[in-house]
Structures are given as C-alpha cells and as structure tokens.
C-alpha cells in the first residue's frame, strides 16, 4: 500500500534520514521503533509531505507523494496523529473534529463518522463544546486520534500516541489502535514504547540515526536479542 524508497531528508546540514526504505502492507499495523532523535517523526512528516526528501520516492496507491502538495495528501487517504497531539487549542472539540474532515463533502457520512467517534470516545462527546486546550493529555490524544479518523483514512500515521500518558491510558490507547486496525484501517505506528508497539504490530522496523537497522515480523523482533537489549530493557 505504501512504499518508501531510499529517502534522504535533511534539516539544513543535518542528514536526518539516510536512504530510508520501508513498506506498509494493506491491513497491517506496521511499527517503526527507535530511540529519541532516531528520525521517526521525520519519517512520518516526510510521508505526509510536511518535509520534502532530497532523494527517493514515496509510492502510495501508485502515486509518488513527493510530487504532491502536502495539503493534498490527506485527500488521497493518509491522515496523521502528530507527535505531541497538536490539537487546535482555542477551537472546540467539535471544531477540531470538523477540521479533520475539512476536505470531505459527504455530509451524511461525516455525521455518522462523528457519531462513531463519539461512541468510541464518550469523553469527547461530553466535552464537545469545550476548548481543546482545556482537555487533559489523554483526552487530547483521543481528540487527535478522532480528528485523524474524521478524514476516513486508509492509512493512519501515528506518532508516539502513548507519549506522556499514564500506564493505564497507554493500555487503552493501544487497544484503540488495535481496534481501529481491525475495523479496516492500515496503521503505521511510531513508538518509543517498543514493547507495547511490538505487541500489537504485524511488522516492525528499527530505526537508528536515520537508518533502518533491523526489520521483520513483530514476533521476530520481540524475540531478537539486539532489540531486547536496546529497546525492551534487557
């Protein structure tokens, strides 16, 4: 479904992604794990067009995303839950969700998607008139997920959705991710929480300083000595 081929991304002189390639198959949860600063966020931003690679291409449904303006990419079926949530703080919860469906014109379907999101996240329904900036961290994360779902993505990019959340909430978020995937959305999940990510993923990549150093099924990586040592705390 998505193929990233030999992508090089720079921040000025900093070479952040070095010939990175990865593959996301339809229906899978693919996870990209790695330490802080490895280039995970850079990878997702490059896929969604916020950053442009110097070399390489990114093929999604036969189109090269590198040649498409960033605001058009969500319309192709890719939406993102950005790192740090990035909800629109002085807009209401409902308005944030509406922004997720900004390009959609199918009024009825949008309404039913909104109701599905409210069923999934009843807290958001209770707080739909509240400003997003007044929500707790966990609620904001749910809002960011809901907002991305409002685009009806075929591929959902998630950047550290568990960051800064209490353990109980982390569990809940991962259960939600699994459920979204079971309902038919392909997911590329970036995580520092390697253990949780590997436990729900089909396939995994390990990123180190802008390079993929390991890849395989999530099962394989979970039991790989190198991964255990570096990312699973022994």
């Amino acid at each position: 479904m998505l193929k990233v081929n030999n992508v090089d991304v720079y921040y000025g002189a900093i070479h952040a992604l070095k010939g990175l390639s990865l593959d996301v198959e339809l229906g899978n949860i693919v996870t990209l794990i790695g330490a802080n600063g490895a280039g995970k966020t850079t990878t997702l931003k490059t896929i969604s067009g916020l950053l442009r690679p110097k070399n390489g291409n990114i093929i999604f449904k036969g189109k090269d995303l590198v040649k498409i303006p960033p605001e058009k990419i969500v319309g192709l079926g890719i939406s993102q839950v950005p790192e740090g949530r990035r909800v629109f703080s002085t807009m209401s919860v409902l308005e944030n969700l509406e922004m997720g469906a900004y390009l959609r014109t199918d009024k009825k379907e949008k309404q039913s998607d909104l109701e599905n999101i409210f069923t999934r996240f009843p807290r958001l329904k209770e707080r739909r008139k509240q400003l997003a900036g007044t929500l707790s961290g966990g609620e904001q994360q749910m809002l960011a997920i809901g907002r991305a779902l409002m685009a009806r993505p075929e591929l959902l990019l998630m950047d550290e959705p568990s960051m800064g959340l209490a353990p109980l909430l982390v569990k809940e978020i991962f259960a939600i991710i699994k459920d979204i995937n079971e309902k038919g959305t392909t997911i590329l999940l970036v995580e520092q929480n390697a253990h949780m990510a590997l436990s729900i993923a089909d396939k995994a990549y390990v990123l180190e300083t802008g390079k993929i150093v390991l890849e395989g099924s999530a099962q394989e990586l979970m039991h790989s000595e190198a991964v255990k040592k570096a990312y699973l705390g022994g």
Partner: protein
Amino acid sequence: MLEFMQQLINGLSLGAIYALIALGYTMVYGIIKLINFAHGEIMMVGAYVGFFSISVFGSHIIVAMLFAMIACAILGVIIEKIAYRPLRGATRIAALITAIGVSLFLQYTTVFFLSPQQRIFPQTAFQTKDYLIAGLSISNKDVFIFVSALILMAILQFIIRKTRTGKAMRAVSLDRDAAVLMGISVDRTISITFAIGSSLAAAAGIMVGIYYSTINPLMGILPGLKAFVAAVLGGIGIVPGAMVGGFLIGILETLVSGYGNSLYRDAVVFGVLILILLVKPTGIFGKNTGEKV
C-alpha cells in the same frame, strides 16, 4: 457628565475606524507573524477608490464602499503574493522592512499619479446633519460610521467563527503544520486573510474620508499607526482584542482632545503603546505565556 457623554460618542466613531483597521493588522499578524506596515496605505487606497467612484461615477456611498473593499481585497492579495510570500522563510526583520517599503511605494505612487494635494471627500455622497438628542449632539456621519463598522465586524465574526474558511484561518494561525495535515492550503488561507483584512481597511478609508472630509496620499500613516497601537493594546493576533483596542484608542484620543489639549492626542496614543510594551506586551486579551513552543 453631559460633556463626557458627548466625548464618548465622538470617540465611538473614531474608535470604530481604528478597530476596523486594527483587525487587518491583527489577522495578518495572527497568521504570518508579520506587522503589515503597508496596511494604513491600503486604507488610503480604499479612500481614493471611494473618492473616484463617487466623484466620477456618482456612486452611492455604500456602493463606493463595496467597490473600495473589492479593489483593496485584490490589492492586499497581490501585495502578499509579490512582496511577502517570497520572504515566508526569511527573518522577520526582512519582512518588516519589506512592509515599510510597500508602504512607501503605495504612498509615493499615489503622490505621483494623483498629486500630493489633499482632496475634499465628495459631500454629495454624504450630507452631514447634526441631531440634538437629550442634550447630546449626534451627527449622522458618526452614526453611519459606527453602525456600518459594527455590521462589518459582525460579518467578520460570523466568517471567523462559523464558516469553513474562517475555521481554516483559525487553524492555520494556531498550528500551520497541523492545518496542512487537515488538507488546508496555507497559501490560499493567507490570501483570504489579506483579502478580508484589506477590505476592512478600505471600508475604514471611506469612513476616514467622511470623518475628516479630506483625503491625501499620506492619510494612512497616522491612523495606521494608531490602529497598530490599538491591535497591540488588545493583544496582537487576537481578533476581539483589535475591536476593543480600536474603540479604546478612539475614545482616549477624543477625550484627550476634548478635555486636554488636542496637540497631545497623538502623543498620548503612542504613550499608551510604550506603556503596554512595558507593562503587558501581550495586550489586554493576551495570555502571559511567553512564546508558543
């Protein structure tokens, strides 16, 4: 007391004018963090467009206003495209200097083609009448300015709060990257912001013409600066702040001329700017959170 009420009423129409201009400053700042110092000149161009549409085509004042608003909306979009867009990634100071350049360009292009001479704003378009109500003298021009400014501000609020475009404008000014991820075109949204801000300035230009009865190519400088002070007073980037700031500055100015010495009215307004910058740089409505991370 009556005297005070009278000054307050006089201040309301001037304040409405400042508020309309301040809105353009604040909206543009909110979305691209640029103080568009050419904004006062857009107001001036609006006054001239109004002047000619009345004196040449005999337009009704409302028609002249709409005409000026459309012309300035286009002018604002063109200025942004040509002068500011290429500097999007540049330092703020580069954009600021460019804005001052655009401002001088508009002033002296107008001087060149239309002469530096001041012109009498056509009285045919607006017959001034004064009414005495409960001991207060109220002019129909003050009422016209105040009411049309309120209508424009209500329309603006509606656009920003309720329409898809307005929500996109808010989203881009809150978090540009997140807005792009929603599918919002940043370029288009910035253009729309310039169009709306400039059209409000054009309406204000017509009002300045009615208020002072004369227009000239440098008429944008002082009201432009005062409206900028108003925007900072309300909290730059905050739309309701610009409205409140505009009215406060307008009323302050008339109170100073009414009770004190009208020679000091400009000095007092700029004194306010210095005071805000010292005491609360984020303005009345701004949160003291420092820079956004």
